[in-house]
């Protein structure tokens, strides 16, 4: 896992459902080994579809998906636990389906449960646990496979805010310790920025890549990093891209408009104007190095440009 080859690569991948709905349109995205990428986008914007593509649960109707990572972990939106099995039985399931021997999978399960702090409840049934704990069981089950690539589909969407943040912190510890490649899909901008090295912004359906924000905050990130100016600025940029990336206009005109708007009104708040992604007026040290990349230009695709100070 030391090499920085790609773990998964989507090239111009599109998905059209049987009923004709275009869920994803020409999405190109690469997650390198050991890299954590978050994808944010509006609800129903094809984020889950993108993840299912990456997992191979869905075949693209256009473009290609190439997964180089062998061992894949998928954390679903719901804990997806078997309600008739104990916590440990659920964690063992992954190994069981892969054909791991009984003693070995039990050892793996116990080790994983210890890592997420759930050894105490190993014998209980899932329904006796809180939502957050169930999610950790799900995480533990995925960890038993020692995944090289972890895919997270809105994993903490159904728990309360504080639990959600704690789960995010725990997930980051696991990422730092194991160095898997991570692809997280979420609608929470703060969660995306807290966890990822890059945040890719997806448009409303059909999902297209609107832009990308690099998050140069070093790991391990303390929970308090969420209150730092750099963090606030990064979330503001992602939010701006989210708001701006809505209807796909003529690319050329938009670029010009965005640049003009950016240079004309440098103190514009990020949420003000659609189609413009605008850094705030007080860039911190980290924010200066943070760069906002444009989406790879595809004819007809939404394109959003933010004119930050460091952008060439």
């Amino acid at each position, binding site marked *: 896992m030391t090499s920085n080859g790609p773990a998964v690569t989507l090239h111009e991948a599109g998905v059209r459902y049987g009923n004709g709905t275009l869920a994803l349109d020409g999405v190109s995205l690469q997650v390198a080994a050991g890299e954590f990428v978050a994808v944010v986008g509006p609800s129903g914007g094809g984020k889950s579809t993108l993840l*299912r593509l990456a997992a191979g649960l869905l075949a693209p109707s256009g473009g290609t998906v190439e997964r180089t990572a062998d061992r894949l972990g998928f954390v679903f939106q719901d804990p997806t636990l078997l309600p008739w099995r104990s916590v440990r039985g659920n964690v063992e399931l992954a190994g069981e389906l892969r054909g791991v021997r009984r003693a070995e999978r039990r050892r793996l399960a116990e080790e994983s449960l210890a890592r997420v702090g759930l050894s105490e409840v190993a014998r209980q049934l899932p329904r006796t646990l809180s939502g957050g704990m169930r999610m950790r069981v799900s995480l533990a089950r995925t960890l038993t496979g020692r995944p090289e690539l972890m895919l997270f589909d809105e994993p903490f969407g159904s728990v309360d805010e504080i639990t959600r943040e704690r789960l995010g912190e725990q997930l980051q510890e696991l990422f730092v310790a194991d160095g898997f490649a991570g692809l997280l899909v979420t609608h929470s901008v703060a969660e995306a920025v807290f966890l990822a090295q890059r945040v890719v912004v997806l448009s409303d359906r059909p999902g297209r890549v609107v832009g990308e924000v690099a998050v140069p905050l070093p790991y391990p990130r303390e929970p308090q990093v969420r209150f730092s100016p750099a963090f606030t600025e990064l979330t503001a940029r992602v939010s701006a891209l989210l708001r701006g990336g809505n209807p796909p206009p003529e690319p050329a005109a938009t670029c010009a408009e965005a640049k003009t708007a950016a240079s004309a009104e440098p103190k514009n708040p990020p949420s003000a104007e659609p189609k413009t992604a605008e850094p705030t007026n007080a860039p911190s040290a980290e924010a200066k190095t943070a760069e906002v990349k444009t989406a790879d230009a595809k004819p007809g695709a939404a394109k959003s440009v933010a004119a930050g100070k460091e952008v060439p």
Partner: protein
Amino acid sequence: MARKVSPPAWLRTVLPPAVVALAVLAAWYLGSYVLIDADRRFLLPPPHEVVRVGFGDPVNLAELLAGLQLTAEVALIGLVIAAVVGLVLAVLMSQADWLERSIFPYAVLLQTVPILALVPLFGFWFGFGFPSRVLTCVLIALFPITANALFGLRSVDPGLHDLFTLHHAGRWTRLVKLQLPSALPAIFTGLRISAGAAVIGAIVGDFFFQQGPAGLGQLIYIYPRRLQSEMLFAAVILASAFGLLVFWFFGVVARAATAWHDSQQQQPAVQAGRR
């Protein structure tokens, strides 16, 4: 009654049906003694007469119990066969859409065809003995278990299916480790309904054959013709009690087998929510 003092749990379970039973008994006595003249009392014999004649007389009781035994045998064997066939059909249909499209219409047909019209035919084809009675019973009991099991097998959480797909689980693994356990609550619901239907099926078959050894069905046919209304009532009570017993039995088994299921958690929640 003081507001905050609530009766114990067992009383809350027992009291409402007991009140209903008392009301029914009262209405029964009212009918026997007030609404009907003494010389026509055989139309609705009072409850204690039913008990005295039907269950108090050893000869009569022996006749009823022999009938119950035959009916019970037919019903239980019919139910076992219906359960096995129904489950196999449901599993087959859950594995492929084309199988469901091929089989399900006939399962529905089974439910809509007047079985009563077929019963004499079974008599012609297979004789009026045990096999025909079991067959009638199976045909009546087959649909509920098939339809419920199929519904259960089909209603597995799609996320869990994805999980199994990601781990390249085969058909068999998926069926045994995911679909069948998920479907257990629905399967037990089907079994309970089928069990009730099997008892009815056993009685109906017997009622129409009127040949061979007498089950409860034949007794129910004969007693009114002999104006033995006490015995008729006793036979009906026995048949209903047997149906209840079977229904209750599957309820207990279901609760034990699906203790993990949410439906088993709702009762305390409802009671806690009460004032």
